[in-house]
């Protein structure tokens, strides 16, 4: 049995869902007089238990709003759990909403320096990775052009090319393969398989079952914040299809 890199125990996450625009002082004062409760509770995740081992890749599937991204955010310690625990052994990198947060007036290279720093890389480390990113993204000379002249696909390429070269122990990827043309997608899938062989742990969210089938050994089906099925990728996918009659 391989070493466990991520373990999630009895994890629960509750959100406050506001039915109104964000809170203001004015409203806080009003609520104080009227009594609060302009929000509802929503259990985004309920009693989640699973673990991932080294050089394993696991798919996380389920309908929209089932808690997949929330689970990734908790594992990456962006959100704090309401109760339960998450153990992580190794350097973790979460690739959520890849390609957003770029600065449109900056060139590709300038954005790489900022984006890389957000992922915890130093300036020298990023400098070393720029040729790799140039090669992997296929953007070549476009790296020196301001980002507002990129198409969305090119922006995602840039982000994904950097993400694939960051080199963490555990990768959390959220619907990142959805863009890019066919050849870029193939390149990404090859790269992910390579990373797996190097002993990385992968947790992959996707709506494309063929991707999950090709990349993942195991899969977890999430619905309304609860684990509905867990097991070999094939079985879980057919359970998903059976459940929603696709």
């Amino acid at each position, binding site marked *: 049995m391989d070493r466990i890199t991520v373990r999630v125990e009895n994890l629960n996450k509750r959100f406050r869902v506001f039915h109104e625009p964000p809170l203001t*002082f004015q409203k806080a004062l009003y609520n104080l007089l009227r009594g609060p409760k302009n929000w509802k509770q929503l259990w985004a995740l309920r009693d989640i238990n699973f673990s991932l081992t080294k050089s394993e890749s696991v798919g996380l599937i389920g309908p929209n709003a089932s808690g997949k991204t929330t689970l990734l955010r908790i594992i990456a310690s962006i*959100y*704090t759990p309401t109760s339960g625990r998450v153990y992580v052994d190794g350097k973790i990198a979460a690739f*959520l909403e890849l390609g957003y*947060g770029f600065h449109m*007036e900056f060139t590709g290279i300038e954005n790489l320096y*900022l984006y890389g720093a957000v992922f*915890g890389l130093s300036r020298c480390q990023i400098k070393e990775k720029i040729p790799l990113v140039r090669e992997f993204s296929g953007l070549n000379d476009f790296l020196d052009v301001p980002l507002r002249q990129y198409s969305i696909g090119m922006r995602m390429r840039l982000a994904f090319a950097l993400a694939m070269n960051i080199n963490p122990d555990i990768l959390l990827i959220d619907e990142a393969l959805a863009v890019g043309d066919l050849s870029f997608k193939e390149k990404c899938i090859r790269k992910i398989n390579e990373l797996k062989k190097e002993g990385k742990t992968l947790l992959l969210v996707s709506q494309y079952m063929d991707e999950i089938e090709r990349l993942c050994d195991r899969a977890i089906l999430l619905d309304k914040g609860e684990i509905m099925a867990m097991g070999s990728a094939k079985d879980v996918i057919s359970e998903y299809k059976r459940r929603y009659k696709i």
Partner: protein
Amino acid sequence: MIKAIKTIFEYRQLIFALMVRGFKEKYKNSFLGIFWSLLNPLLNVLIFAFIFTVIIKIGIKNYPLYLLCTIFPWNFFHTALTNSVVSILEDVYFVKNTSFPNEAIPLAVVIVNFINFLIDLLILFCILLLLGKSINALWLYVPFLLIIEFFLVLGLSVLSAGLYVIFRDLNFILNLILRLFFYFIPVIYTIEFVPRNLRFIYQLNPLAVIIDGFAKVLFYGVAPDLKWTIFAFLEVIVIFLISFKIFQRIKKIIPERL
């Protein structure tokens, strides 16, 4: 607290990258950028100089020069705070998708504005020397005043950037307070204009003491009021620690509320 500061230090590369972005945004990659950032305080100097020397005689000799000595410290306070308050919200994609100490964002904003302030001061020193003032041992007080103001601005900036995520009308409230604040701080007049029995209220305000300190050292060439300056220093330490503490309390829910 010490742990939190350590984590921020570990992310110094990120802070540096955010600062680089801040500078590029501010100066739009051109030398003229420095001129643009000077324009706003200089316009204020022109307006107040006109009103208080041509229309109403305020009776401060070399009044425009006095304004230059007080407006730059005020401008740093004002610009850094108004830029910081929205900063975490503006970087929503970074905050929501990666885990890093969110204080880094307003911290970088404050440092960028602080360096800008230092450039302003350098220009001011040149003007002072050109106008025949000589380099003066009293100028050694300036670093001390700078440090106090830096930590005052940093504490308030981090706190307001965090609170703004939760209370979205904070920037309106802050703008109102800052406008009020401007007239109750000795920027366009000296602290000696304030009636003696009310003056202690001014001196309880650390920003008023700092700006008065700048005026005394740079314009009048006298030492700042040491008793009140040390008191302001202690106040700033308390303000900074409380702001930082509150931010550590609320930072857990910041990514969720964005």
